[in-house]
C-alpha cells in the first residue's frame, strides 16, 4: 500500500507520520510537497499535524488553500482513504472535506496529554481493527490548542445518524468539543479527521501502542 504524507510549510508531525506508516508492514509512505499537483497512484493520503503556515488566521486555513488541495479533493472524491490528524483534521474541515469547524479549546490553553477514547464506529476502513478487542477504549495522546469541534445541530444529527462519529473522548472532555467528538468521517466514510495522534502510540515505550491498529486497519 502506497501512502502519501503531505508536507505543508510548518507541518511538524509529517516526520512522525512517515515513520509510523513505514513502521507497519505492507505500507510504504512517501512525502509529497504541498505544491504538487497530483496524488495519483497513492492508496491513502495522510495529512499530518503541526502548525501549517504557523496557524495564521485560523488553524489549517492557509493550508486548506494550498496548491495540492485540488488533488486531495479529487482523490477523496474518488474514494481514496484520507486521514487527517490534528492540524490535518483542521485542514480537512477548512477545505470542506469534513463538516464543522475546530476552534479554540474551551480552557483556552494548549493541551498535551493522554486521553481515553471510545471507538464509536468500528465499521470504517480506519477502525475495523479495533473490533474484537476486549474493550473499544483506546488511549492516545492529544496535543492541540484548537480541537474544540463545533457544528450546527443539523450537522450533528447527520453525523450521529450516519455513524460518522468515529472517536469520542471518554471520561473527561479536554477541549469542550460538541458531543465529545474527537474524530469524524465524511459521509462516504473514506475521509477521517481526528484530533488525537495515533502516530504517537506505536509501541509501548511511547506510552501506548493503540495507534498502530488504526494504521493496520487502513492497510487491510
Amino acid at each position, binding site marked *: 500500500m502506497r501512502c502519501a504524507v503531505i508536507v505543508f510549510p510548518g507541518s511538524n508531525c509529517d516526520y512522525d507520520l512517515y515513520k509510523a506508516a513505514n513502521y507497519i508492514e505492507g505500507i510504504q509512505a512517501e512525502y509529497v510537497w504541498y505544491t504538487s499537483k497530483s496524488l495519483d497512484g497513492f492508496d491513502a493520503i495522510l495529512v499530518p499535524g503541526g502548525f501549517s503556515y504557523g496557524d495564521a*488566521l*485560523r488553524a489549517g*486555513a*492557509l493550508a486548506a*488553500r494550498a496548491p495540492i488541495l485540488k488533488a486531495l479533493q479529487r482523490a477523496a472524491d474518488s474514494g481514496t482513504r484520507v486521514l487527517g490528524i490534528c492540524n490535518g483534521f483542521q485542514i480537512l*474541515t*477548512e477545505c470542506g472535506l469534513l*463538516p*464543522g*469547524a475546530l*476552534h*479554540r*479549546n*474551551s*480552557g*483556552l490553553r494548549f493541551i498535551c496529554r493522554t486521553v481515553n477514547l471510545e471507538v464509536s464506529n468500528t465499521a470504517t476502513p480506519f477502525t475495523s481493527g479495533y473490533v474484537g478487542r476486549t474493550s473499544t477504549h483506546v488511549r492516545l495522546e492529544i496535543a492541540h490548542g484548537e480541537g*474544540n469541534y*463545533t*457544528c*450546527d445541530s443539523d450537522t450533528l444529527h447527520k453525523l450521529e445518524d450516519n455513524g460518522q462519529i468515529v472517536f469520542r473522548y471518554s471520561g473527561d472532555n479536554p477541549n*469542550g468539543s460538541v458531543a465529545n467528538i474527537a474524530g469524524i468521517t465524511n459521509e462516504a466514510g473514506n475521509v477521517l479527521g481526528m484530533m488525537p495522534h495515533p502516530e504517537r502510540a506505536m509501541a509501548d515505550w511511547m506510552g501506548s501502542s493503540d495507534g498502530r491498529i488504526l494504521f493496520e486497519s487502513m492497510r487491510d
Partner: protein
Amino acid sequence: MLKGIVTVSLKQDVLDPQGQAVLHSLQTLGFPEAQNVRIGKSIEVWLEESDSQKAESRLKEMCEALLVNSVIEDYSFEIVED
C-alpha cells in the same frame, strides 16, 4: 492606496470561551457593568487599487476565499483611504 478593514466575529450561536473568560476577568477587576464580551478579529488589508467600488468587491472575494470561515464566522467590512 485604499485599506479594507474586515471585522470578523463568531456567529451568534457559537460559544466564545475567550470572550467569557475576559468577561469574568473584567467583572472581578471591578467592572460589574460589563454584561457580555465577544472577541473577534480585525483584519486590515492594504490594496493597490484606487477605485473603491472595485476594492469592495475584491475584498469581499478575499473574505470568502480565505479571510472568513463561514461555518462559524460572520463578517463586515469598510474601505477607507490610507
